[in-house]
């Protein structure tokens, strides 16, 4: 029971972090049709910039400056890269973002080195919020949860209650019509791209010290975010939220439960010995498979339900 509650809370924290990354990507993907491979790289830039700023100025300015810097990077990528690659089709845009992801990873390695950097939780938030069945819940996780909930509310209100939000929502599905009505659709694209990148940067700022700030962080996070986007469905922020939480649950619980298919078979009365066919596959415990789960989900969803959870059209 205690394990369940603690894992649930951790899953929620992780899921909301995923949502922060995935919400921007969902908007970009459903509006422009570009799966932005560099999205997780922007998250990494956010973490590294925040580390650099927090070393000299402090964590709180970093919380504001790093997302803005990431937004500027996103806008530049959209204006100087994607717009030009757009003439050659979606695959070209996709390839551009792949190249950028590679470039950013190598650039980060070059500037900050190959090893993880000591980006730490700020001292003001480095205490125990409450204890539950002997397990401490750090205040920083509560802070992350707060920030991400606040962000979700802000996007929700922006998209549903403001004029800009209306135009963005209309551009998701009917960009030609929006353009015909006299709105500057390319500028909407740039805004969304910059906004999504800023959110990814924010996720980097608060996720970088929660997880690890290292050059491989983009590559480990990227596919998980893709799964969330595909699972949630194109054009649906709510689907994205649900998918993020589900993904957080799957990832957190898979690490906790040390069972394997062989255990299940033994429970059902079939003994698994090294002589059994596929014994090696059957006896792999769940925590070892947990890194594989996102990819497995990605493949299965795309093959059997490419529309995702709440999507209105195929991926």
């Amino acid at each position, binding site marked *: 029971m205690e394990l369940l509650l603690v894992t649930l809370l951790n899953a929620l924290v992780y899921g909301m972090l995923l949502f922060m990354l995935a919400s921007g990507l969902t908007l970009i993907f459903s509006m422009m049709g570009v799966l932005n491979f560099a999205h997780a790289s922007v998250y990494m830039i956010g973490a590294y910039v925040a580390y650099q700023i927090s070393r000299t100025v402090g964590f709180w300015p970093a919380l504001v400056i790093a997302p803005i810097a990431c937004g500027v990077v996103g806008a530049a990528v959209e204006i100087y890269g994607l717009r030009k690659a757009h003439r050659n089709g979606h695959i070209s845009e996709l390839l551009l973002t792949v190249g950028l992801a590679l470039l950013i990873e190598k650039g980060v390695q070059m500037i900050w080195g190959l090893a993880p950097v000591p980006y730490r939780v700020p001292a003001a938030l480095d205490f125990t919020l409450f204890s539950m069945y002997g397990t401490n819940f750090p205040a920083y996780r509560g802070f992350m949860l707060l920030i991400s909930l606040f962000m979700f509310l802000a996007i929700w209100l922006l998209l549903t209650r403001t004029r800009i939000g209306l135009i963005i929502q209309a551009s998701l599905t009917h960009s030609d019509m929006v353009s015909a009505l006299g709105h500057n659709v390319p500028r909407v694209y740039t805004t969304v791209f910059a906004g999504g990148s800023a959110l990814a940067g924010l996720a980097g700022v608060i996720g970088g010290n929660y997880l690890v700030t290292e050059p491989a962080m983009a590559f480990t996070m990227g*596919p998980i975010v893709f799964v969330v986007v595909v699972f949630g469905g194109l054009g649906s922020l709510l689907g994205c939220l649900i998918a993020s939480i589900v993904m957080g649950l799957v990832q957190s619980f898979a690490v906790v439960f040390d069972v394997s298919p062989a255990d299940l078979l033994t429970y059902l009365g079939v003994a698994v010995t090294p002589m059994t066919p596929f014994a090696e596959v059957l006896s792999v415990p769940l925590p*070892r498979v947990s890194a594989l789960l996102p990819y497995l989900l990605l*493949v299965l969803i795309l093959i059997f339900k490419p529309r995702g959870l709440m999507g209105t059209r195929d991926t």
Partner: protein
Amino acid sequence: MTEVVAQRSGDSARYDVRAALGRFWPAFTFIALAIVVPWLFFDWSKGRHSGFVISLVSQMGVMSIFALSFNMQMGQAGLLTFGHAVFLGLGGYATIHALNAVASGLFWLPVELMPLVGGISGLIFATIFGYMATRQTGTAYAMITLGFGELVSAAAVMFNGFFGGEGGVTANRMIKTSFLGLSYGPAIEVYYLILFWTVLSAGVMLLLTQVPLGRMANACRDNSERAQFVGYDPRRVRFYQCAISGFFAGIAGALYAINYEIVTYDAVSAVLSANVLLMTFIGGIGVFWGPILGAVLITLLQSWMSLLSGAWVIYVAVLFVVMVIYAPGGIAGLIMAHLPIWRSGRLATLAVPYLRIVMPSVTGIIGFAGLVELTYSASIGKGQGRALTLFYHVIDTSSLLPWFVTAVLFALGIALAASQRVQFLESWAAVAEETRVKEPCR
């Protein structure tokens, strides 16, 4: 479609040897060069081959097959894949196990036919995988292949029985089963084996672009709906194309296994999948020989530039990004665009515009390379205790002067090149237009 085929075969019947030579002379020259290359670097004083050159050209051969098979999906069928290394890797693992099985006397198979083992296992995996994945196209297909690639590479570390875990599986290629009585001990013998299979595979793949399947793959890439109207199922076309490309990737994997005598997790990894994407795209996806060009070029860069600079991946990545934006046809596409101008003898008129844009660009590139090298040596290079030297002078990365000079070179070069861009494109378009009028058939 049968009429078209009949007409095509009628065409090809009229080809005589001289016509074929006239058409394929670049290919024959290239093959002749590939045969001769190891002997150009032969060390006559010691009477042995240069190990570096042989391993380099062997790798080029393997990567050429691999890149061509990648382009069967990417260029010809419009299917971007991020997991192509899976077929190479699984073909490689199958070959390693086959080599070991032959060595232990389980069955008999000459080394010359080992690539078929890799090819068939690549084909089997590509059939299973393609059956599921080819329901999708475009971005969705790319993502399925990404997931599939990651699954296999994670499984390669997880299951030791077949994949040998982190250490990989090793074998000895000197199994004394050869049609030709060769031992395959010396690397040069392996190189000629690789070359033989490269030429054979490239020939078959070229042929496959001309048969109805290859043509329909192009049609499904360009307009799936119309291909359906003609009576073809685009999904089946994609499926066949994927399966056959898996076969050739498997052949590349077998040669990889024979060449290195070890297959590890690297052979199925995302790094190799990304590498083949870079190679193929930089070489050119629109022209059949583009991937070969890319494989040769990038392998050369990898081996040669990694000796010069630790930051060589940055250069390749920048080249890739610039190509995606400005030259989506790759290097082969650029060459093909200049061919009609060259044929009409007007290439000289482009000399001045080229000079005007190339000189500032080179300045900018030098500045950029300087910045990259300074950054690299200030971080990773410093950690490894290496100093940056230029013309035998050690450069102090902590002083501001080198940073300032390279930054100015970079900014100035790029700004000047950008100011020349419009004029350059206009003069280029003018010449291209003239040659097009003169040669309407091309």
